[in-house]
């Protein structure tokens, strides 16, 4: 197992050890090469924001990891590393060009429909307290049906067994309950 030291790293030896499964050597190698990769990315993509540069550095690290079996310890490490880095940097440029070709710059995103009804920020009841109170005001059968089928999410069969009501009666009760809740909550808005 290769331990971390302050001596200048022999990247070829570290990579050879990493290929043999030495995790400490691999960790040290990745730490040593990351600044080199970052410098190469900055040199080729100096106009990118920092986060994009870091994304690209991570992309190169992942690529290096994916093809680490292709390194031949008899050959120098740096050209191997830089070939991967250059390739991934060029790929990111091609991806950027492809996506830019399919994008249209707009200053303001249009609404899908202009009507107020289609432009609510959120759906749902909005006020859980009001919903709870509305449910409590329902007749017993309807309240029981809503609690079992909508809140506890029982199946019709399970709810029928638990309540003693028929499946048909449950369906009618829950339908009426929802209709009543809609009216009550709409009136409160």
């Amino acid at each position, binding site marked *: 197992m290769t331990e971390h030291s302050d001596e200048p790293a022999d990247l070829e030896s570290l990579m050879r050890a*990493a*290929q*043999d*499964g030495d*995790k*400490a050597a*691999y*960790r040290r190698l*990745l*730490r040593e090469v*990351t600044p080199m990769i970052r410098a190469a990315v900055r040199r080729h993509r100096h106009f990118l924001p920092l986060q994009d540069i*870091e994304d690209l*550095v*991570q992309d190169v*690290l*992942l*690529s290096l*990891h*994916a*093809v*680490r*079996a*292709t*390194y*031949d*310890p008899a*050959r*120098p490490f740096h*050209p*191997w*590393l*830089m*070939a*991967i880095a250059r*390739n991934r940097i060029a790929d990111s440029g091609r991806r950027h060009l492809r996506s830019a070709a399919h994008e249209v710059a707009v200053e303001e995103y249009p609404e899908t429909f202009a009507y107020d009804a289609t432009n609510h920020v959120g759906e749902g009841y909005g006020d859980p307290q009001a919903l709870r109170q509305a449910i409590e005001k329902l007749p017993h059968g309807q309240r029981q049906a809503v609690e079992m089928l909508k809140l506890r999410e029982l199946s019709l069969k399970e709810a029928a067994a638990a309540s003693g009501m028929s499946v048909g009666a449950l369906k009618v009760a829950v339908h009426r309950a929802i209709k009543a809740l809609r009216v009550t909550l709409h009136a409160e808005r």
Partner: protein
Amino acid sequence: MTVETDHLIERLADEAAPVRRLRHPGKRAAIWLALSLPYVALVAYVHGLVVDVPSFLSDPRFMIEEIAALATAIAAGYAAFCTVVPGRNRAVAWLPLIPLAVWLASIGKGCIDDWIRLGAEGLEVHVDWMCIPPLAWIGILPAAAMVVMLRRGAPLMPWVTVALGGLAIGALTNAGLQLFHLGDTSIMVLVWHFGSTALLAALAGWLGPWIFRWKMVPRSSDA
């Protein structure tokens, strides 16, 4: 170093299992040939095709074509395996052009000879359906072996790599098939043998990015 990059390094190091190093591209090309050549011979034998050795040896132009096709297969295979190793000289991708030019020049000379000898009849092209099944069968194993072996490398230039692989497969299968089609005119060899090789290389190159892409672990451990 950002926190995310630091975490990624930790994760990659923790997940790093021992890997089997890729052999030298020359050795890999030799392995591919060692797998493919006996198979080509076996399929040809199963199809009842017999080599006409005396005709083969008595025709120097045919021998040049045969050797050039085989050399194209070897050079293209070697170049394909070189292009999947980062840091190797990319100019090696041009290497197969030398035997390919010799192969094409020899077929071209054959076309002129046939035209002088037979007139317009020597340049007639007709469809030979009989050679298509053996051609397809002959290509299956070399193609499968090539795809599996290439995908162990780095997809640095997938169009070029897979086109070179396609050229190697096409040239090898046609070198095998050519042995059993001694009577063909050069125009037939040009259109069907050389043409199918060129078409396979072009099609393979077009499909390259789909066949051969980066196989990376997810960026975050919870992805």
